[in-house]
């Protein structure tokens, strides 16, 4: 085989491989973005828009930037941003759930106090 052709073929192959690597979908970034999206959806459904608007907005912003970086084949920032968006969304969801649990516990305490007072009163002998 011609040595010049061989060199050319090798170069072409290398270029093609590099191009394919650059333009192929990035499975890791895609997966991280999907995970972050799911976390944001969950946060939105659990009341985070009211309970944790700042954290949720940060998560959405980072997700949008991750999607853009991924589209621009800027892989590393896409992965990092998607990871941050994911944890921000989880924090937002946890804030909403925590607020809900705290409210329920406070209401429960109040109802228990009322109940105790009533039962104390009921235990008094009738006149």
């Amino acid at each position, binding site marked *: 085989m011609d040595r010049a052709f061989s060199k050319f073929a090798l170069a072409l192959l290398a270029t093609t491989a590099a191009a394919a690597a650059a333009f192929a979908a990035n499975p890791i970034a895609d997966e991280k973005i999907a995970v972050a999206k799911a976390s944001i959806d969950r946060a939105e459904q659990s009341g985070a828009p009211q309970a944790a608007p700042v954290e949720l907005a940060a998560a959405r912003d980072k997700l949008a930037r991750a999607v853009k970086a991924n589209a621009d084949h800027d892989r590393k920032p896409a992965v990092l941003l998607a990871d*941050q968006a994911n944890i921000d969304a989880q924090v937002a969801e*946890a804030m909403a759930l925590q607020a809900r*649990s705290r409210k329920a516990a406070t209401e429960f305490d109040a109802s228990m106090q009322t109940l105790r007072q009533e*039962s104390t009163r*009921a235990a008094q002998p009738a006149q």
Partner: protein
Amino acid sequence: MNTKLLTAMALALSFAGCVSTPKTYPALDTARTAVQSAEADPNVSKYAALDLQAAKGELQAAEAAAMKHDEPGIAQPAYLAAQTARLAQLKASAKADDARVAAGQTDRNRIQLAARTTEVDTAKEARDQANLKASGLQAELDALKAKPTDRGLVLTLGDVLFDTGRAELNPGAARNLDQLVQFLTAHPDRRVEIDGYTDSVGTDSFNLDLSQRRADTVKSVLVTRGIDSSRIASRGYGKEFGVASNADSGGRQLNRRVEIVIGGENGEAVAARGRS
């Protein structure tokens, strides 16, 4: 000499500078503080141990990057460590509240059950007392041999308590009236009507008058024994409303009688009988 000393000092200083000033990274400090705070939270180890472990893992990655002075490599794990530690505390707080409510439900059920039991007991007590009162009343009425009628409870005093043609009470009537007095004293809200009746022997006007005088006699006895006269009405019905035939002496004896009608417990007056 002077030069040597200066060189030594400069060397010493440069070594000191190298050793004593490790570089600080604010993101790493934030992460350390957040993880320490989560570690110190007893709810976290109980309810969010896995999240705490994840936060510690990210913190270790950030520390390792700092050791290698890999400044760009610190920011991401440090941020994830801080947020994961925060997540652990939030989850643990929610679970602790939920657990407290769940445990409290048992207490609440117990208190509610106790309250209901008390209510039931109170109601039962009231019912028992009512039953006792009712059975007491029943016993009293049984003693008086009173019979329930449309007008109220009727107690009949036979004419053996009166001499023929006279309105004075025989001493033998005392016992029967004692029980009536007791009953009226125990039930001060009840009113009575005393009705006199005769047989058909003699004129109507004589019989009406005699029956009224016999009723009045019983009334005056009750008043003498302390019953308020306003509670007692007396009427003479003469030969009306006979309870037996006037054709024989036995029937006539049954017809010569005084009936005491006991009114309701709410103090209603006893209605007079319509003439037949």
